[in-house]
């Protein structure tokens, strides 16, 4: 039962996961996950720690290899060769929980480095582009700062700009606000909400239920490496089909 038609269901999906499996030793991180993401959708992956959400995200851009199943990106399976995989990664932006800004580069250099190193763009053009993205995330006055001189929220906004610089077709967010002080969470979520409004396809692993409730077009609940339930936020948060979805949400203090 879906309350409303899924966004852009008439278009070819951006990402398709088919029976994806991943093990770490004896621990099964992903136990046959199948789902898809349409262009322009904001898909939030929620669920307890260790339920496989982050692993699925990392399998999407090849930071982790699959033990079974397959991932299709824009209709094609993820390539096996390293060179082709690099091409795919340029079309996927990734934002990490710990920002992972490069500490030896200024904020602007962090944003421009992908353009210069990977896309071989001339430095002045790359810097112009980086400048525009720094403005977009509201940090025009911090371009010369090193990451060590930025707050967590500012660092994460630079990291978003760095990923956007490559003009990705999809953005992958791996718990982007989990390492932040509560007072800076909002500024990061605002940037993400703005991106969603612009039509960016986004997959967001998050524990921010109010963000998922308001911004997601589709919510996927994970449990023990399996997909427990998926649906529009109204279904997941207001009328979950599975008792265990309700349990998980009430555990977080979500009361609908």
């Amino acid at each position, binding site marked *: 039962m879906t309350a409303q038609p899924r966004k852009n269901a008439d278009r070819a999906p951006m990402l398709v996961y088919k029976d994806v499996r991943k093990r770490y030793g004896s621990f099964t991180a992903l136990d046959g996950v199948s789902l898809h993401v349409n262009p322009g959708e904001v898909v939030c992956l929620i669920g307890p720690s260790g339920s496989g959400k982050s692993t699925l995200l990392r399998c999407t*851009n*090849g*930071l982790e290899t699959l033990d079974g199943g397959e991932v299709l990106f824009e209709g094609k399976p993820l390539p096996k060769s*390293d060179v082709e995989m*690099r*091409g795919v*990664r*340029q079309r*996927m*932006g*990734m934002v*990490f929980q*710990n920002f*992972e*800004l*490069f*500490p*030896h580069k200024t904020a602007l250099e962090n944003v421009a*480095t*992908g353009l210069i*190193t*990977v896309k071989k763009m001339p430095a002045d053009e790359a810097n112009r582009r980086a400048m525009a993205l720094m403005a977009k995330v509201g940090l025009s006055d911090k371009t010369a700062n*090193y990451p*060590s001189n930025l707050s967590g929220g500012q660092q994460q906004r630079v990291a978003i700009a*760095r*990923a956007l610089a*490559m003009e990705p077709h999809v953005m992958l967010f791996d718990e982007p606000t989990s390492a932040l002080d509560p007072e800076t969470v909002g500024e990061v979520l605002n940037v993400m909400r703005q991106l969603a409004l612009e039509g960016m396809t986004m997959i967001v692993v998050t524990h921010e239920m109010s963000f998922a409730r308001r911004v997601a077009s589709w919510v996927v609940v994970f449990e023990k490496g399996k997909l427990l339930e998926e649906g529009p936020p109204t279904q997941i948060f207001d009328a979950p089909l599975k008792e265990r979805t309700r349990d998980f949400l009430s555990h977080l203090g979500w009361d609908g």
Partner: protein
Amino acid sequence: MDLDFSPLLDSWRFLASGLGLTLALSAAAVLCSFAAGLLVALGRLYGPRWLSVILVFYIDSMRAIPVFVVLVWIYFAVPILTGHTFAPFWAALTGITIHVAAYVAEVVRAGLTSIRRGQAQAGYALGMSTAQVLRVILLPQAIVRMMPAFGSIVSVTIKDTAIAAVIAVPELMRQAETLAGQTYRPIEIFTAVMLIYFVIIFPITRLIDRFYGRVAHLGRS
């Protein structure tokens, strides 16, 4: 006991030429061993399995053999084995480089592996190759983190050049021995040599530490 420093005043040019050679040998040894050590570390971390086995054996050997023995072996044994004689300076440079490079390799390896995995992953996520990740992201941070250890290696390398005296490289220590033998003033001359080494090395290690204090934040991810 009466001290007589006049031999130093009379023969300072003789010692100065030794000092010049000490500095040249030190600079060459530092450059060569840093370059070689970097290559060894990269080969060990990123090379094929057989290569890293060989390199680990090399590193373990060099840590277990005195630099004095390596130097003497290269100068006296290699010519017998190969039929080619080494000029003393080149034998000394080769011996010190082979020895110090092993320590440099360990420092570089420790520096690279101390950087958390997410940094490399952030580079890969942008579409970088392993070589680009290494050059643009990991090595610049590793070099910053390695600086204090590099400072000690530089000072050890300069001090190790004194061992070249045994294979007749006319560097500072060798010239001092010669002068002491000629003038019968070992106390004055060796004291002067001691001071010269100190005056060269002490500021270098202090400068490296000072510089590290300034840039340490660039290696902190």
